[in-house]
């Protein structure tokens, strides 16, 4: 099976050529289509750097990074913009646009890339994730969990094949965290490829693969046959109509 993502001698350095600061690599790995891959590691291990390279937010210094048969490490700025429009990204602190309301933020996920997105699709997503009652609300007044769900809807508005998540539950309380985990599980079950950077081991049962990083290098890679451990709640346990815990960040 051809991997959807393949990294070969991928590395990222900062600083000057004379005094480079190595942040990542060289690393090699593959991710297949539909896999839920976790990237684990302590702070400073290079997780976020790797995710930035995979999401096209940054360019590798050396090596190849082939995603859906395109070597994005060689892309120009314009092509990288186009690539970013074709994927979904979920951030730890949501990164919503403060001047727009909920549905506008979701639609911007498609508009920013130059695509037309209709409101029907956005409303379907909002309904699926229990935020349809917040359609016209300004995102500043939403709770953390609601904001993250808006971010998830935004990431899915263009129906991307790959979803990148940078600590999506890092700013949420436990209740909201569980809900988001469940959402991501649903997304993974729908066949989408998810690559997630996280500290939390709550996602371990959901994952197909775990990549362990330390000091910018892969120290271990594990693949699992399966996921769905009972430590996470199932869909029937979650009532999206109930007010969420507003203590989330």
């Amino acid at each position, binding site marked *: 099976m051809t991997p959807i993502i393949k990294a070969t001698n991928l590395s990222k350095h900062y600083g000057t050529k004379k005094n480079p600061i190595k942040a990542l690599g060289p690393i090699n790995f593959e991710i297949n289509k539909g896999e839920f891959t976790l990237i684990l590691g302590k702070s400073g291990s290079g997780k976020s750097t790797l995710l930035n390279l995979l999401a096209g*937010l940054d360019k590798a210094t050396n090596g190849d990074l082939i995603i859906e048969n395109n070597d994005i490490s060689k892309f120009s700025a314009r092509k990288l*913009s186009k690539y970013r429009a074709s994927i979904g990204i979920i*951030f730890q602190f949501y*990164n919503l*646009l403060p*001047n727009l309301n909920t549905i506008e933020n979701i639609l911007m996920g498609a*508009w*920013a890339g130059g695509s037309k997105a209709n409101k029907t699709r956005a409303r379907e997503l909002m309904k699926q994730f229990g935020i349809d009652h917040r359609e016209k609300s300004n995102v500043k007044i939403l709770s953390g969990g609601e904001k993250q769900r808006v971010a998830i809807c935004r990431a899915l508005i263009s129906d991307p094949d790959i979803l990148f998540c940078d600590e999506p539950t890092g700013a949420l309380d436990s209740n909201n965290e569980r809900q988001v985990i469940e959402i991501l599980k649903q997304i993974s079950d729908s066949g989408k490829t998810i690559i997630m950077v996280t500290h939390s081991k709550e996602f371990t049962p959901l994952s197909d693969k775990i990549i362990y990083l330390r000091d910018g290098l892969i120290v271990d890679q594990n693949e699992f046959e399966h996921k769905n451990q009972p430590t996470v709640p199932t869909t029937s346990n979650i009532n999206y109509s109930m007010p969420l815990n507003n203590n989330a960040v």
Partner: protein
Amino acid sequence: MTIKSIFLFLGKYLKQNWLRVLLASAGIVIGIWSITLTTMLSFGVSDKIVTAINSQPSARSINIQQEESGATTFFEISGPPKFVSLDKNKTFSEISSIESVSEVSLEENISIFVNNNPEPANNLCTTALITPQQVQAEVPADIPPSFISEDSEATTNEPEQPTQPSPQQPQSIPDECYSINLGITNFTQIYEENKNDWLGKTTAPVGNEVIACYSCNPQKPLYKELGITSPQELVGKTVSSEFVQVPSLLEAGEIFDVTNVQELNKNVTSPQLNELKIVAVIDDSSDNSGAIGAQRNNFYGSESILKTAVDQIDGRDFSTLGFTAYNIYVNDYANLEPTIETLAEKGFLASSPILLVVQAIQTLFLVVSIVLGLFGFIALIASIFGITNVMAISVLKRQKEIGILKSLGATNFDIFKIFSLESLSLGIVGWFIGTVLGYISTLVFAASLERIIANNSGWEQNLLELGITDFNIPFDFRVAIITLIIACIVTLISGLFPALRASRSNPVETLKSE
């Protein structure tokens, strides 16, 4: 990014930061306000003046001569003076063919002007020549009567009224109506110095033709001696005089001067009665203008004398002698300049003093408005720095939004567009407010002026006679469009650097910012 999303994003931001937008565009407001006020005011006042001038019929007139005359003083003449003439038939048809010409008025006298000093002769000639019927009789049949001015007035110093000639038998132009005016002060001296090359050759002592000097001798001018009142009366007259014994004592072209003759008579022992025909008259009398030493400097003679003289000097064919100047009226002031150009193409020397005055006034007001508008322009230039600063701060404050948009797929150019449009919106807002304030200011000015005038009935009446009924200054869309363009250019320049900087920012770094 789609256009809709750019405007949505920008619109929401501007709506929520309206106060910052207003304050940032203050410099633009002041600049546009100043430019709008000064230019609309100057154009408006200039238009009122033009309206006043245009209300006078003389404003639509053009003076026309066929050729440029010679030098202005005798001493500058290197050759014989140039004569100016117009062929009335040819000229008339050419002028009448111009569409914008509404009527043609003829000069009130027939003179051959030299050196552009058309001191008209006494108007004995006018009655015979410029009545519409007379003119019509003298022009080709295909010239429409409407082109003949009905306004031509026959003025005359003579108490007698001239006989109106029948159109079928046009009256010939009397000899006394021909004259030469050299426009120089010492005509007598000039004549003395040039008579041999000039009219001196045309007179034949045997034929007892003499040149009479009308008032060359201030102590004993001839006209007083003979009891006549105008130079033209002498032309063609036969004078019986005991003053001269024999004509042969007068050389060809000799000026017939009483003093001169008395001198000649000193040795006369047997006076004889002689008849002398005065074929030409020199008129050096004062022109009563009040200027010291101002003289008429006319030279009157029969047609044959003048033609011969001219032939001697200039070799010009005067067989088509006609009216020497035309006044043309156009049907609309706006056609004045195009008609002058058309006349110039046909070879006429056409000018309109009123047009020159109006153009001078308009130029003056344009210069004034430019100078005053410069103050507004300086305010606009100064605002560049302010807006650049505001936009730079805006980019800094919204680094995270830039990163978010980029992470969602916005290109560098999309970001550049967003911030360029933001700075452009400052210009448009400033332009709108400045234009409204500027126009309101002109209305206030007009109302104030009307109030002042209303308190002075004399002014109001005078202005009404000039066709000025109000001081309303209409909104000039040209000014608005030009100021809009200026405002857009200024603000785009201002926002250029911040927008470029925003577009080139690194998404990873911008996402990290607070």
